């Protein structure tokens, strides 16, 4: 079973709108990371949130972490067409980085 599960599986929004993606996981973690992947390309690291952090910002990205609910959310504000990609959360436990199912985001111009 997946360590991280993402919700929704697909999201379609208009440019300028905000996009929120959620991730749930099952075991204790050291940190949680969000990655972006353009179709058929490599995974690009976006942001890392440690297990003792609750919220983190990076540019238009805002990540929250609720360890009591074992969940995280990624908010992309003021989305752009170039944000169209798949977004994955990945949990770190020990020295393992485990990915959950991604959210396919489409931002329409």
């Amino acid at each position, binding site marked *: 079973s997946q360590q991280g599960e993402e919700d929704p599986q697909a999201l379609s929004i208009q440019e300028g709108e905000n996009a929120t993606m959620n991730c749930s996981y099952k075991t204790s973690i050291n940190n949680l990371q969000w990655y972006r992947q353009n179709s*058929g390309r490599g*995974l690009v690291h976006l942001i890392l949130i440690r297990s003792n952090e609750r919220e983190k910002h990076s540019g238009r990205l805002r990540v929250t972490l609720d360890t009591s609910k074992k969940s995280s959310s990624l908010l992309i504000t003021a989305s752009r067409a170039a944000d169209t990609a798949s977004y994955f959360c990945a949990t770190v436990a020990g*020295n393992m980085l485990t990915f959950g199912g991604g959210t396919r985001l489409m931002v329409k111009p």
Partner: protein
Amino acid sequence: AAGVIQSPRHLIKEKRETATLKCYPIPRHDTVYWYQQGPGQDPQFLISFYEKMQSDKGSIPDRFSAQQFSDYHSELNMSSLELGDSALYFCASSLVVYMNTEAFFGQGTRLTVV
């Protein structure tokens, strides 16, 4: 800055053949991971190495093996290839990821088994 380099970028093999994928991590990174990503799927963890020793093992078939060499590059060896092995194979490197460092991914090797 140097990134994770994978070779080859594309590979076409026939069923039952063998394939070797190579990964060159970022200099001074001590951990290497291998992932398999099928079409429309999330990356599945195969195996990792820390300081040239196998660290963790995921859903890696017995037909696959991997190792990390003295120069820290890693190779994923795949034998008796099956059609279902067609996927993108990613390598990533990091500095001990549980110490809250990010993993950097290569561009992947697209393996097609025909």
